[in-house]
């Protein structure tokens, strides 16, 4: 194998591949990236056995072939090469090394045989559809903060993507929860997605996939089977196993009968919460909301640290209410609001509270209160 490629194109492809590779690895081949050169394309493939990413880049291929080298080392080398450099990758059958040359720099890396590299089995994708990158970005960006890290509830360690019905129309829906807060985000159902089975997309996949979504113009081809999900752009294909579990029935968690309505400027609210939480204890971070007519008082009282209070002008017309929340959760959901006012719907101080942006039902958040 011998090929030449521009440093920028190489870095982009290798960086994407190496980020999938697990840092702490007991199987040596999994630390490697598989490089395959053919025609006028070079392909980089990396996997952690749960996710596989394949990056393609145009290259001048002198001799077709394939080999594997340490993804991290290759990435580091390419990163440190000067911008605009032409990089040549060539395997040396005599020594079994991969030679990298760029200008006056030369490297030779140990390789492992390509036959040892595990390639993910293909799946029977029952649903194939295309989604614009900004749509997918919104679905996952607004839900991923609520993903649980608790290993005992492994079925919550991802975003549940499925087809649902909202206000009479079918939607593509992403839900994530850790039992303390929940995010439910909807998008219009893309053509071809109606037959999709609901899948739980693992946290790491969400993070890796996010890197494909920065281009506003891009269309992402999504394929879903019962065990796998695949996201593809012209240059990159990311295939991931989905979490083998049942996502709990989240619909009964979303309060229907909350009537006490608070409307507040989300940014003002977030800044005030952030200010008062400065004195809360590291462990609990409890903030108390005291509501009366058109007035909200945020307060923190941490006996060991101190106390803080701030008043906000709000729209509130129901009876007085005192309710506590984890400041971190309030900040997280408030930061999801970007266009209109935040609308909170409360029931009692012990019941889940609902938050949405204005009257927009396509992004709904639920947060559990805290005893204060």
């Amino acid at each position, binding site marked *: 194998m011998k090929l030449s490629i521009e440093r920028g194109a190489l870095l982009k492809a290798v960086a994407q591949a190496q980020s999938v590779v697990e840092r702490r690895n007991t199987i040596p081949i999994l630390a490697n990236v598989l490089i395959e050169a053919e025609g006028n394309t070079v392909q980089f493939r990396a996997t952690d056995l749960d996710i596989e990413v394949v990056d393609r880049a145009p290259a001048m291929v002198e001799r077709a072939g394939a080999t594997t080298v340490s993804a991290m080392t290759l990435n580091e080398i390419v990163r440190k090469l000067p911008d605009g450099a032409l990089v040549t990758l060539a395997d040396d059958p005599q020594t079994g090394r991969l030679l990298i040359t760029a200008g006056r720099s030369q490297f030779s890396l140990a390789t492992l045989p390509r036959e040892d590299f595990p390639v993910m089995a293909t799946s029977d994708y029952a649903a194939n559809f295309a989604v614009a990158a900004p749509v997918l970005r919104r679905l996952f960006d607004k839900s991923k903060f609520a993903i649980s890290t608790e290993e005992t509830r492994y079925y919550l360690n991802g975003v549940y993507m499925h087809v649902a019905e909202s206000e009479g129309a079918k939607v593509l829906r992403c839900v994530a929860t850790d*039992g303390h*807060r929940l995010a439910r985000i909807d998008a219009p159902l893309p053509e071809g997605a109606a037959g999709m089975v609901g899948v739980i997309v693992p946290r790491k996949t969400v993070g890796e996939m996010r890197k494909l979504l920065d281009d506003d113009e891009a269309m992402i081809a999504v394929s879903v089977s019962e065990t796998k999900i695949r996201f593809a752009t012209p240059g990159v294909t990311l295939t991931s196993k989905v979490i083998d579990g049942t996502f709990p029935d989240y619909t009964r968690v979303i309060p229907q009968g909350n009537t006490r309505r608070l409307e507040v400027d989300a940014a003002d609210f977030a800044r005030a919460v952030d200010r008062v939480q400065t004195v809360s204890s590291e462990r*609990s971070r409890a903030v108390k909301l005291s509501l009366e007519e058109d007035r909200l008082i945020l307060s923190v009282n941490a006996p060991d640290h101190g106390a803080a209070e701030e008043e906000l002008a709000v729209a509130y017309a129901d009876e007085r209410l005192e309710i506590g929340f984890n400041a971190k959760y309030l900040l997280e959901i408030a930061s999801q609001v970007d266009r209109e006012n935040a609308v909170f719907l409360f029931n009692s101080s012990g019941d889940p509270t609902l938050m949405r942006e204005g009257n927009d039902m396509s992004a709904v958040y639920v947060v559990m*209160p805290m*005893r204060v």
Partner: protein
Amino acid sequence: MPALCRDCLATFDGGARCPACRSPRVTAHPELFDLTIAHMDCDAFFASVEKRDNPALADKPVIIGGGQRGVVSTACYLARIKGVRSAMPMFQALRLCPEAVVVRPRFDAYVAASRAIRAMMDALTPRVEPLSLDEAFMDLAGTQRLHGAPPAVMLAGLVRRMQRELGLTGSIGLSHNKFLAKVASDLDKPRGFSVIGLAETEAFLRPRPVRLIWGIGPATQEGLDAAGIRTFDDLLRWDRHDLALRFGGMGERLWHLARGQDRRRVSPNSPVKGISNETTFHADTADADILDGHIWRMAEKVSSRAKATDKAGRVVALKLKRANHTLISRRHALHQPTQLADTIYRAARALFDQVRDPGPFRLLGVGLGEITGAGDADREGDLLDPDAGRRAQAERAADAIRARFGPDAIVKGRSLR
């Protein structure tokens, strides 16, 4: 040589008997009045409390422990003469000493006695570090002017007062650091008073086995055996760097201990690190229902201790011992600290389900770690478990009933299995 009578607390210069009261209980040592770090260890504490409270037991061998399959918690000195030791399986203890009276532990009584002793120690110095109910370190540096007597005299007075006022005896180890004080208290039990001075430290340790080091785990012990280190003399031959290479962080400590150096301070409020309870079964069991009952019982015990001391914990631990004595332990970090039996049980049960081992097991334990105050506990509900709030209320209500009508007034069905 400076000397002290442990009966009348007279101080004098040398001699086998006290010049004032003629008692032979004399401690003499060149550094007797200069040393300040002490370790007090009660003699057969649980058994002594039982004998004190029930004089009929006074001249009988007494073993504290529970059930046929349990282990010896404490044995009195009469039983120890027959070879009975702490942590020995009960059947073995009864074979060695069939005439022994086995008494179930009464922790309330031990806690009360321990508190009384603690109050006496607190009167000597603010630097008291309890290790358990029946032993503690004390640092009496700088107290001589306050008490008008050197630490040794005050310590002899402490054990005399314990015997007179509480009917309990203890042994004192006095030295220049914690390690040696702890070693010393064990040299001359019961009713002992041993001193290890700075000048004799190395000579004293040299011929002794390294087992003496308190807190050496089985793994380090095996490592020491494998390295051919049996005595402190063996240990002294090792280079500091080699010890660190072979034993990691422990190596550095071993190097210092070999020279009798221990710089740990006596810290009065060493925080509670964990609350745990375990039980050894009457017969090994693999029955999931029975084990589930034990998990609940242990969770409930841990929870009630947490509630009693206003503590909560964020980590739940499960410990299982297989029939062949190998251990399985698992931990789970909760989202928030808890003191609820229900939450502890659920976490421990989930850990149990993850252990894919069919058993049989001989022991099960449940523990709570990363201890915090009760104020931070159980403040957030769980969206996906809306009944959790109701169960917590039921538990608090049951606690209130128990507080009023006794611990057995209300129990869960599953704890009766």
